[in-house]
């Protein structure tokens, strides 16, 4: 049977009638060109993928992270405080906020939403693990009792699983939305080029100004050259990622503006500390020294910056002055001590990395030709994540290359997930087992919640141990987001705590 394309179905006249006083009315649609399909999961509880670029504009959390100020800022909660030991948190809610469903956002609703998210156990639900119980003394106050100290203001700012929604209005089919955010769904056509269109939620608590965008379309564009051409012709307004060369061109193109921001995502080169030749710390150090950090970031041309330590800048725990440097002479010495190198037997090492990732491939290319000169042969296998991870969990490689990023803006996850010892490794793919480090990691949440400067010191000390003493990992670079927008868009800032998300409400034309 015939059906009309576009879920909304009601054709809207393009020209708006009568501009209200005070500024030009913005009747154009903001077009975002993501390189992947947008939505795979509409459920705000379990969503853990690309769709945050849409959901972040539909749903809101209690707080939102401000990467300039390096702290959480009010959103649905207007203020909060924690007990001295960091085990109890009290949030005061904003008044007069309505869900898209029409229901009122109050303490009870917040409690229900977070409990549902916890129960679903999907996606990033684990971020609420510290929460023991939630109490609602009155309609605008929510109290969290924690099992152990944790920075709940940061948790509540998480990009995933921290959204507050009307649990009765959740619709997995993407026809209704249950959030409080400024936008709702206009139409969703899975698999189509213009996959998703959002429209303004008229009752948004922040209100609407004429110059804001009332409509947003996600136009899926996998090829960056295509995206770039569409941007140039004004058919799209925002491209999340170009390559450095196109980005350079964008910089110099009229009608296009660019924005560079360092991300919270960095590349980890994890060495197998448990078995194989890399068990020898000298070999691990030699490998660290063999990486051409400068060449790599030069070749990345701004798409990545040389890292300093494990924690990217913009997060508590970032350490300055831990920038690594290539030193092939020293590497050769260390190798020689370990019985390898040019005059000794050949050393063969296996490495796995993510298939299809150009930047990782660049690292592999540079590393393997540098190692070749040291009589070390690198057997690099590009693998799909599932296969790479499976193999990693079985300690199947000497070097494991992956990206890491936090689910909420806190450095803790690099340490808890990646370097705390585990009998059955999940993400501890360097298989590091060091009781001292473990103990220090366990203290981090409490420190963060209670004594920020002590926490920063502890982070720095841990990074020194892990990178310099144990040489369990090399961190070549932190990714830099290079965004290109049409120049008539105003008010864009990139918030690395929410990768690739554009908060359309903040934009003007």
């Amino acid at each position: 049977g015939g059906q009309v394309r576009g879920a909304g179905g009601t054709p809207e006249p393009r020209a708006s009638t009568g501009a209200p006083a005070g500024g030009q009315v913005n009747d154009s649609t903001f077009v975002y060109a993501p390189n992947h399909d947008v939505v795979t999961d509409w459920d705000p509880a379990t969503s853990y993928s690309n769709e945050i670029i849409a959901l972040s504009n539909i749903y809101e959390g209690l707080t939102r992270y401000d990467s300039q100020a390096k702290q959480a800022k009010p959103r649905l909660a207007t203020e909060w405080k924690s007990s001295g030991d960091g085990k109890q948190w009290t949030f005061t809610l904003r008044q007069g906020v309505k869900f898209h469903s029409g229901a009122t956002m109050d303490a009870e609703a917040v409690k229900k939403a977070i409990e549902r998210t916890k129960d679903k156990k999907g996606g990033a639900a684990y971020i609420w693990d510290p929460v023991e119980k939630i109490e609602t003394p009155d309609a605008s106050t929510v109290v969290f009792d924690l099992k152990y100290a944790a920075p709940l203001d940061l948790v509540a700012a998480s990009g995933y699983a921290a959204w507050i929604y009307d649990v009765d209005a959740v619709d997995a089919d993407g026809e209704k939305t249950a959030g409080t955010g400024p936008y709702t769904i206009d139409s969703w056509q899975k698999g189509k080029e213009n996959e998703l269109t959002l429209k303004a939620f008229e009752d948004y608590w922040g209100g609407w100004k004429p110059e804001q965008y009332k409509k947003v379309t996600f136009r899926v564009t996998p090829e960056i050259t295509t995206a770039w051409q569409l941007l140039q012709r004004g058919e799209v307004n925002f491209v999340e990622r170009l390559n450095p060369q196109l980005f350079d061109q964008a910089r110099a193109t009229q009608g296009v503006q660019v924005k560079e921001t360092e991300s919270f995502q960095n590349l980890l080169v994890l060495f197998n500390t448990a078995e194989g030749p890399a068990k020898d710390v000298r070999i691990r150090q030699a490998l660290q020294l063999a990486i051409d950090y400068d060449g790599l970031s030069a070749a990345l041309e701004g798409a990545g910056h040389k890292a300093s330590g494990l924690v990217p800048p913009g997060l508590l725990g970032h350490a300055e002055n831990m920038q690594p440097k290539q030193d092939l002479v020293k590497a050769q010495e260390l190798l020689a001590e370990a019985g390898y190198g040019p005059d000794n037997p050949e050393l063969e090492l296996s490495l796995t990395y993510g298939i299809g990732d150009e930047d990782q491939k660049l690292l592999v290319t540079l590393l393997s030709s540098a190692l070749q000169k040291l009589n070390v042969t690198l057997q690099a296998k590009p693998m799909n994540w599932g296969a790479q991870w499976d193999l990693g969990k079985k300690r199947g490689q000497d070097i494991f290359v992956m990206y890491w990023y936090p689910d909420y803006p806190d450095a803790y996850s690099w340490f808890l997930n990646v370097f705390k010892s585990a009998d059955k490794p999940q993400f501890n793919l360097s298989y590091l087992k060091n009781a001292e480090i473990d103990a220090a990691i366990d203290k981090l949440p409490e420190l963060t919640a209670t004594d920020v400067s002590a926490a920063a010191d502890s982070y720095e000390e841990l990074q020194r141990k892990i990178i310099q003493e144990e040489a369990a990992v090399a961190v070549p670079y932190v990714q830099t987001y290079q965004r290109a927008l049409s120049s008539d868009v105003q008010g864009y800032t990139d918030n690395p705590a929410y990768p690739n998300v554009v908060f359309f409400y903040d934009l003007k034309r």
Partner: protein
Amino acid sequence: MLRYLTRRLGQALLVVAGVVVLTFVVMRLVPGDPAVAFAGPKATPEQLAEARARFGLDDPLPMQLLAYVRDLLSGDWGISLRTRQPVLDDLYLAFPASLELVGAALLLAIAAGIPLGVLAARYKTKFPDFGVRLGSMLAVSVPVFWLALALQTVFASNLGWFPVAGEYDSSLDTTSPLTLWTNITAVDALITGNWPILTSTLEHLVLPALVVAAYPAGVIAQMTRAALIEESGQDHARLERALGFGETSILTKFALRPALNPVLSLIALVFAYAIVNGFLVEAVFNWPGLGRYAAESIRSLDTPAIAGVTLLVALVYVLANLVVDILQGFVDPRTRTR
């Protein structure tokens, strides 16, 4: 004829059954737990176990095959690990777009290839023949992705003659919304008389269709030429010459029909082939088709989706061949009595 048809149908079913089994085997060979792919990069062991149970991954293999076949027959082609939609739904969206692109390309290829083949055969060993042979060989040798990029850069970006990418101008969805019947945009626009969308679709189709058409046009021209030359070297051409027919009318009136037979088989083949191989083009021109779906599924090891595409393409292949076999009967009466 009826007996021949039933026999052919039986064979086709056998082939499909074989493809199903092969697909299943390949799916199970793919490393990496589909459960991992489904549950996401940071899944917990419980989430994994749940996903495993959901996909029946803990049953013995023959049972899984049985269940697989039963599901296929009942219209359940599995759930895509990547999009989390039923695979059949995904295919229902992606396939019509591919059909539109490949169909248009094949029409182009036939419209260009056959006359060029005739031209070459008519002036064989002369300049036009040389030109057609050279051109057709270039067309089959050019890497598609390269051609796609080049055409896009030149005709869309630099000259601005055609849209850069996409299936149609989506702003038309509000001004003149399209009623869907077949899910193929151009066809629906045509039957509902939606001219703005139709023209927009055609504009968007030109470049990608040209790229997809390059290879088939080349082979069709080559094959037509060869078949025509062969046919016009046959005894009957001599009789036609002796009857006073000119070379051109011998080729077009007498030789073309029997010569079309191998060309038809070729078209069936190219059709099935182009549906998958179009992914390179679909990616560049942002065409929401099956090839792109397949490529993405493969990249993310989305086994149910890969299996779905495979089966669909195999079905298309088998069907196209069946259709051609029947068509050949009309084109060449000799084959009717098989």
